[in-house]
């Protein structure tokens, strides 16, 4: 067992445990914390794969910004524990088996076609400069488009989250 495999298993177990805990917990703040754990573990996996920059950004953006937003909203709305309401039978009858079937199929297909191919992370260095080069040359258009997406998202968020009478007031001015 190489050190890589051990690390992989460690982070993988943390990630899966976090994901399952996300499902098991009834209080959203616990789910959020589990999700942060998953993200941190995934950052570790990224490091193993040689993607240092992606790992750092994963922590900063996902764990440090997006999840803070989630926690903030949970705190703002003072969301309590989940109620066990009778919702949809379809979700259980169709969804769960569908999900199981597809994951089994995907896992089988992946094992079938990739078998024991090894990953050599040391060859590929996710150096920020190289990624930036790619991002600002080959992917320049998508990059600019996402900037517009972000702008629209900001405006949408401001409009949606403003209280209705505040919007009304702003219109009157």
């Amino acid at each position, binding site marked *: 067992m190489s050190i890589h495999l051990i690390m992989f298993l460690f982070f993988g177990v943390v990630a899966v445990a976090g994901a399952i805990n996300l499902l098991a917990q009834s209080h959203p703040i616990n789910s959020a914390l589990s999700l942060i754990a*998953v993200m941190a573990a995934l950052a570790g*996996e990224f490091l193993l794969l040689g993607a240092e920059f992606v790992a750092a950004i994963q922590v900063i953006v996902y764990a440090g910004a*997006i999840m803070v937003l989630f926690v903030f909203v949970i705190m703002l709305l003072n969301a309590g524990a989940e109620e066990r309401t009778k919702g949809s039978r379809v979700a259980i009858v169709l969804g769960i088996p569908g999900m199981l079937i597809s994951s089994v199929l995907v896992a089988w297909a*992946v094992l079938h076609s990739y078998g024991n191919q090894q990953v050599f992370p040391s060859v590929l260095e996710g150096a920020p400069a190289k990624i930036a080069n790619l991002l600002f040359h080959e992917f320049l258009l998508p990059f600019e488009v996402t900037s517009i997406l972000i702008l629209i998202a900001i405006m949408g*968020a401001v409009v949606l*989250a403003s209280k209705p009478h505040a919007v009304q007031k702003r219109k009157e001015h």
Partner: protein
Amino acid sequence: MVPLSYYLVLSAILFACGVTGFLIKRNIITIFMSIELMLNGVNLSFVAFAAQWHALSGQVFVFFVMVVAAAEAAVGLAIIIAIYRARETLNVDQLNLLKL
């Protein structure tokens, strides 16, 4: 060295957990978090493939996924706040009318 398929299977497990969360959770915020979990699972696949094929584009894609996730979180959480204001509940089983 770790086989590529391990990463892919881990990614699939995380994705499946996300889907399950979407199916069984009632709290709309938790459901939203399940979506983030799915996105994370996909990101792992991207990075693993990038390492496998020595193509940095895979990592670049992770950035795009993150940007989309951030935008989605901003708008989605704003929507959740708006819904909560109108209905005073976060339970999706009770949010089944297609209007506020």
